[in-house]
């Protein structure tokens, strides 16, 4: 089984409505050849509809969809070099694993010998050799999804669509299958379009991610770009967790700006020259963020050179082994969320407890201005 060739997908100005609700609003994006691309968003954001348009189950009212420059909208689902892995597996219950995987080849009237060879190749790919005579109902969820992946790949499509393929599996299995999917993607080399509402899935395997909400694409970028420089408040809060702050820029010193607010006092944030929201001038009202894992927490006062030092009282500590989630309240009611990694047992000499006075501080490089407020 050699490496296959994927397609470049171009989606331009695609809109789609069901009854009165517009589920896709003028969506445009390009997915590169062989890319592992994720469509990420909350349920109802239109990501599944976009996938179904690519598969040929839905027709958009407007817009263009091309594979390597060829318009695919006139093609029926069965005529497109695009196959789908469904959320509920959609295995044919009356057929064995072998026949399920062989199904696309039988339709093409491929010779029996060739079918056998290829089915076993793909059984190897998904590590199910020896299970070929089982019926789907005799297998676990993870195994079924592997069958479904093999069945979708065997006719060597240019694009594999994955519609929340792991959402029916438990957490451990999900991680395992996610890693396997990544390996399979490397092995077959075709374009993967992966729909999910789970940001950790999307971040961990994708080359690029498109974050969608209410029928629109809010941001397209690598997982790091999406996490570290979110396009707006929605992306910042949907991907991971964060602390939002608001204030007015009262000093600009090269890449360093100072944001002043009544509740927090001056906060320093470093902004890149190519910042999405920049450039910033004194007087701009902005919303900025600091991720919970980037806040340091300690019981002694940090030294004078530290920036963005804030003190408060611990409101709650939620211990979860590798980290603790700590909520810290300021006098004025502002609450910070901090993820403290347990890199060292009892780092501050004792466990941080409820009602304890603590200092928070973070590096200006880790702050991010997410939006300019008008």
């Amino acid at each position, binding site marked *: 089984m050699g490496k296959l060739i994927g397609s470049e997908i171009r989606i331009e100005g695609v809109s789609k409505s069901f009854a009165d609700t517009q589920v896709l609003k003028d969506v445009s994006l390009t997915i590169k050849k062989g890319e592992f691309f994720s469509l990420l968003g909350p349920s109802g954001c239109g990501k599944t509809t976009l996938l179904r348009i690519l598969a040929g189950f839905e027709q958009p009212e407007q817009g263009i969809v091309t594979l390597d420059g060829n318009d695919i909208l006139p093609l*029926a689902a069965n005529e497109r070099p695009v196959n789908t892995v*469904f959320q*509920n597996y959609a295995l*044919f219950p009356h057929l064995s694993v072998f*026949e399920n995987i062989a*199904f696309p080849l039988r339709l093409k009237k491929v010779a029996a010998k060739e079918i056998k060879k290829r089915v076993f190749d793909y059984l190897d790919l998904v590590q199910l050799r020896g299970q070929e005579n089982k019926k789907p109902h005799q297998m676990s969820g993870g195994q079924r999804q592997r069958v479904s992946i093999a069945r*979708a790949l065997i006719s060597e499509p240019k694009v594999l669509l994955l519609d929340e393929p792991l959402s029916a599996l438990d957490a451990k299995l999900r991680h395992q299958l996610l890693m396997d999917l990544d390996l399979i993607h490397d092995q077959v080399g075709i374009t993967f379009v992966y729909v999910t509402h789970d940001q950790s899935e999307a971040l961990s395997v994708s080359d690029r991610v498109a974050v969608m909400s209410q029928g629109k694409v809010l941001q397209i970028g690598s997982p790091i770009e999406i996490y570290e420089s979110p396009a707006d408040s929605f992306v910042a809060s949907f991907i991971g967790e964060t602390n939002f702050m608001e204030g007015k820029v009262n000093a600009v010193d090269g890449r360093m700006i100072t944001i002043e607010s009544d509740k927090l006092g001056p906060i320093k944030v470093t902004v890149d020259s190519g910042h999405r929201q920049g450039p910033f001038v004194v007087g701009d009202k902005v919303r900025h963020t600091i991720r919970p894992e980037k806040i340091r927490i300690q019981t002694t006062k940090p030294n004078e050179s530290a920036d963005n030092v804030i003190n408060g009282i611990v409101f709650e500590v939620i211990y979860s082994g590798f980290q603790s989630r700590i909520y810290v309240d300021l006098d004025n009611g502002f609450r910070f969320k901090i993820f403290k990694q347990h890199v060292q047992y009892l780092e501050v000499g004792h466990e941080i407890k409820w009602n304890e006075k603590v200092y928070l501080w973070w590096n200006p490089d880790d702050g991010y201005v997410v939006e300019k407020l008008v």
Partner: protein
Amino acid sequence: MKKQAGVWYSLPLFAWVTLFFLIPIGMVLLYSVLSRGNFGGVKAELSLDGFAALGNPAFLKTVGITLLIALVSTVLTILVALPASYYIARTKNNLTLLVLVIIPFWVNFLIRVFAWMAVLGREGFVNDLLRWTGLTQEPIQFLFNIGAVIIVHVYTYLPFAILPLYATIEKFDFGLLEAARDLGADHLTSLKKILLPNIRGGIITAILFTFIPILGSYAISDLVGGKDGYMLGNSIAYYIGKANNWPRASAIAVVLTLITSLGLMVYFLLNRSQQKTLVEEEVK
């Protein structure tokens, strides 16, 4: 060994089956090998006279016609019921449609057959329509032949086929058809290769619910069959009611039961071998 719980719960069923199935069947078997009473009934003398006449051509013809009517009616019923139940299962107001399927049961069965006589008769609706459109001058004889018997059977047994088919199609995961199309099957192929095998249980039930009752049917052929549409049921009725030949009637009933059981066995065997060929295909 663990004591099996609830054995006694099956007592009512056991009593029912014994009283209304085993005993009557036993009596039919017994009567078929006794000799004929002078004024109906049987005499307690063993005799195979009941079976003697079953080899004659007239009787064999009745068997043939009965089988033909039952087969053709069943096939037509299923052919009509399949798309109908598919539609009912996929449409939103399926409750309304199901009620419409059941509504004919509110009218007495014989009255419904008479209604067909009014529709198909010489002065009936169909002939009126044909003459009105000028397609025919003289009324066409639709009634009193095999065709009429088949039409009324299909009409009568349609709900019995639609209901089990609907019940299985309704449970079918239509996402599988989408998956089949995604993998390269056109619409018809996906129905044939994915829908049909997965609703086989419903199809078998529908066939049994139509074929077996039609095989023993009597009233419909009596009313609209004429002498061409004469079935085994009519024959039994004749020997009991008119000819006072209970052994003969019982012998025919035994033959009918045998045909039904044979038919069932052949069907189940075919069914099984079909599953086997599927498996063998996999191995190839």
